[in-house]
């Protein structure tokens, strides 16, 4: 047999694809998958949030206790808690949690609802309060979030993972704890519709509790004066424009013929607060 050497020009062992094209194609595909998952999770949150049982939610609440377990102002906390209890006795339809108030020393002028009936109030907010009615309105607003289960939606897409890990490994597992901790870094954000709904819930509850609606708009008026639009927006970015909220509240007061009577002055025992 005669050997005839021959060079093979074509290389079948190397695909003729461009690696750069390959790279971007892969990146786009993988990003697409993640995006689809992210969107699906968003829908899943809306589906799951109203279906979480009160018992499970109470278990979630325990996961966040690192935020509020420190009780630095027990006396003031008691005073605020008494306002919470007063409001609660006038609304039997709220989810049945033991609603607990937690005061946190901070300059933040804000209050937050956490799963399981935990209401966090920052001392920055307390300093602004001049009457019990005004504070009751803010607390009632947070109770409104509980009633509409906004605080569960507010946890965002992490909620889906939290529900799964609770089902698979229990609410007190390290996995659940890890997920809960990573969620608290993100501030809870509610949509403007959710805020407005909580506002009207709060107004109704305030009127029921005190038999009049004085103080309902105090806090928002103060805020709109204290922080003209830009800075105010920075703090309350997701809340409706305060002026619009005040108008909406005033309209409801007029429509429903709520009375406006004398406000109860607020006296908090802790001097830091005042």
């Amino acid at each position, binding site marked *: *047999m005669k050997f005839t*050497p021959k*060079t093979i020009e074509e290389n079948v062992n190397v695909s003729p694809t461009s690696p*750069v094209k*390959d*790279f971007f194609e*892969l*990146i786009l595909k*993988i990003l697409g998958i993640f995006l689809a998952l992210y969107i699906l999770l968003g829908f899943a949150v809306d589906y799951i949030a109203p279906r979480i049982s009160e018992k499970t939610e109470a278990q979630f609440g325990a996961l966040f206790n690192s935020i509020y377990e420190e009780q630095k102002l027990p006396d003031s906390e008691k005073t605020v808690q008494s306002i919470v209890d007063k409001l609660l006795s006038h609304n039997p339809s709220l989810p049945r949690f033991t609603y607990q108030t937690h005061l946190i020393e901070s300059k933040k002028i804000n209050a937050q609802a956490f799963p399981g009936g935990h209401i966090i109030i920052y001392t920055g907010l307390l300093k602004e309060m001049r009457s019990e009615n005004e504070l009751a309105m803010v607390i009632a607003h947070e109770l409104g979030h509980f009633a509409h289960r906004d605080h569960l939606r507010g946890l965002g897409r992490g909620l889906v993972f939290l529900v799964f890990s609770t089902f698979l490994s229990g609410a007190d597992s390290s996995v659940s704890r890890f997920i809960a901790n990573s969620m608290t870094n993100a501030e809870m954000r509610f949509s403007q519709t959710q805020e407005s709904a909580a506002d009207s819930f709060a107004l109704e509850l305030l009127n029921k509790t005190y038999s009049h609606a004085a103080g309902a708009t105090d806090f928002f008026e103060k805020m709109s004066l204290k922080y003209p639009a830009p800075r105010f927006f920075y703090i309350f970015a997701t809340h409706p424009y305060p002026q619009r909220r005040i108008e909406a509240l005033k309209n409801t007061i007029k429509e429903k013929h709520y009375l406006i009577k004398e406000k109860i002055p607020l006296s908090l025992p802790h001097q830091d607060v005042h």
Partner: protein
Amino acid sequence: MFDLISFIILVGLGYFIGTQIEKKHYASLKRREALYLQLPAVTAKNMLEERPIEKASLISGSAAISTDYFKTLLSGLRNFLGGEISAHETILDRARREAIVRLKEKAADADIILNLRIETSTVSLMGGAEVLAYGTAIYYKK
């Protein structure tokens, strides 16, 4: 942020330097393969001519070629979705051809290389490739 920047730099360096090295390597392979084109290397065990043999010896050539950061990333992405890791094909191809060329360089004076075998193994977890080629070099009496 710093992580992201260093990551992009590594990927970019990997791509540009890696492509450059690959181009050079392919050019060198082509040149050297042409040089030893006249020396047949076959997988057959017995293709001897009816001539006295002066020497027969075991020869081997091996090459280890590494990936670059870009190729590693690309095959990592490929792992998500499955399919051909085309980025890795050139690595294997270069290693295989380099090993055979080295084997031929070792037995440049031989008349034929019989029983050529090629084996591959993974050198590092990063995805480099090692190829070992071995065979029997036959030298006929002149």
